[in-house]
């Protein structure tokens, strides 16, 4: 992503709008016993389009806003979302995924990692008893998030588009086909 004031403003707007929508609206929506979670989707989308550093920063501030607004332990969500964003961003940097459906697995992995990571941090902090139903709910949220991943990622891509240096979803230039006919010595080579 191009490091500029515009880029920071766009990411900040995404964080703010995403957090407010999540805590004011989506947290109260129940679909098949689970709640869609926009925050890991947002972090996953920024990781896919803008890379590890932007995603880690987005994750940190998303977690911070949610923890500060709801007076939960600040730092817990930030820590998990920072690592989730960084991990997915590194995947993007190393593998450069370009398939049109790649937001779906990224959304699923981001949501699962966020749910499990937060469970781990909460358990380490409070030693509380955790019901198996909590993990069932995480699983349902993963499915819900995977279903809504494509439009959310498309929206994030649209917002970040003008400040992206490389867009992994853009159609790549097709490689020229390898020559399969002709003199034996030239077969398999691009001529």
């Amino acid at each position, binding site marked *: 992503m191009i490091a500029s004031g515009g880029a920071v403003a766009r990411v900040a707007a995404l964080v703010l709008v995403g957090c407010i929508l999540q805590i004011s609206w989506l947290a109260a929506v129940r679909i098949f016993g689970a709640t869609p*979670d926009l925050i890991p989707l947002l972090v996953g989308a920024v990781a896919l389009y803008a890379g590890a550093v932007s995603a880690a920063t987005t994750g*940190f501030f998303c977690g911070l806003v949610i923890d500060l607004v709801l007076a939960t332990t*600040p730092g817990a969500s930030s820590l998990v979302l920072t690592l989730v964003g960084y991990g997915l961003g590194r995947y993007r940097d190393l593998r450069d995924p370009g398939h049109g459906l790649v937001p779906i697995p990224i959304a699923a992995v981001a949501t699962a990692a966020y749910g499990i990571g937060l469970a781990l941090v909460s358990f380490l902090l409070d030693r509380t008893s955790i019901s198996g139903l909590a993990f069932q*709910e995480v699983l349902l949220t993963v499915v819900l998030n995977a279903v809504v991943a494509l439009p959310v990622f498309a929206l994030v891509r649209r917002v970040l588009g003008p400040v992206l240096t490389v867009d992994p979803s853009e159609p790549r230039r097709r490689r020229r086909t390898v020559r399969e006919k002709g003199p034996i010595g030239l077969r398999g080579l691009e001529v």
Partner: protein
Amino acid sequence: MYDKTAVRRRRAVLGVLVASSLVLLTFFFGDSVPTGLRAVQRGVQVVLSPLESGASRALKPFRDMAGWTGDVFYARGENERLRSEIARTRSELARAHTDARELAALRGLARLSRRVGYPGGTQPVTGRVIARSPTVWYSKAQINSGSDDGVEVGDPVVTRDGLVGRVSMVNGGSSVITLITDEQSAVSAQVMPGGSGGVVKPEVGKPNDLLLDYIERGRKVRRGTMVLTSGTASSKLESLFPRGIPIGRVRQVDPAEFELYQRVHIEPFADIRRLDFVQVLTDGPEAEEEEVSFR
């Protein structure tokens, strides 16, 4: 291309963010939070609460629409359950009227004073829920009533169905509620009419199943009986909750074969996941002790 500067910068950013998270965790964990950090937290809440309030109101139709499908399926079973509950409640009410008259008579004879419980001595302040915790690991909510409306830290929060939680943080125009399903919540309670006392605690991930712990094994607790807040009479250890707020109904009793206490599972009356409006029970007119006379 392998760019050393980019790699260093990337790792530095990650290090700074993780370190910041750990510093925040260290400062905020426990009870002694530095005043400056608490002020930052309050500031963020004050700035964002109007936005949350606006978003909550504007998006309510969409939220209701999403819940409508599930509600249709749920309503059929709910209707049957409510009919049987009304029948049971009618017979309980008749018995309660008789008991109340007898109690008043006995109090009059013994010259006992009556301690006013819920809802006496409280002044309810209604608030709209403007934000909720998005994960199952924390159960907190924010409402649009604050210290300007008389809300104070520790005030109990109820719906028309029963106890919801207590106020854990207050700003001028908003407050944060720690719900009874939050892992840090513990409510002293009594099973009625037997009077067995215990502590209601949640289990993370089960908002419709609270645990009433510390009930001795010998005590008989019947399925379907009501659980209320017990309050405490001691002035040194006053309960946060007034006596008599309905919490839920006993769903299942687990004898816990090798333990001293039995575990009682309670289904809360209030639907914690669908809170729109709540009432904060602020200190009302002084809860005076009444002298009851039998006529």
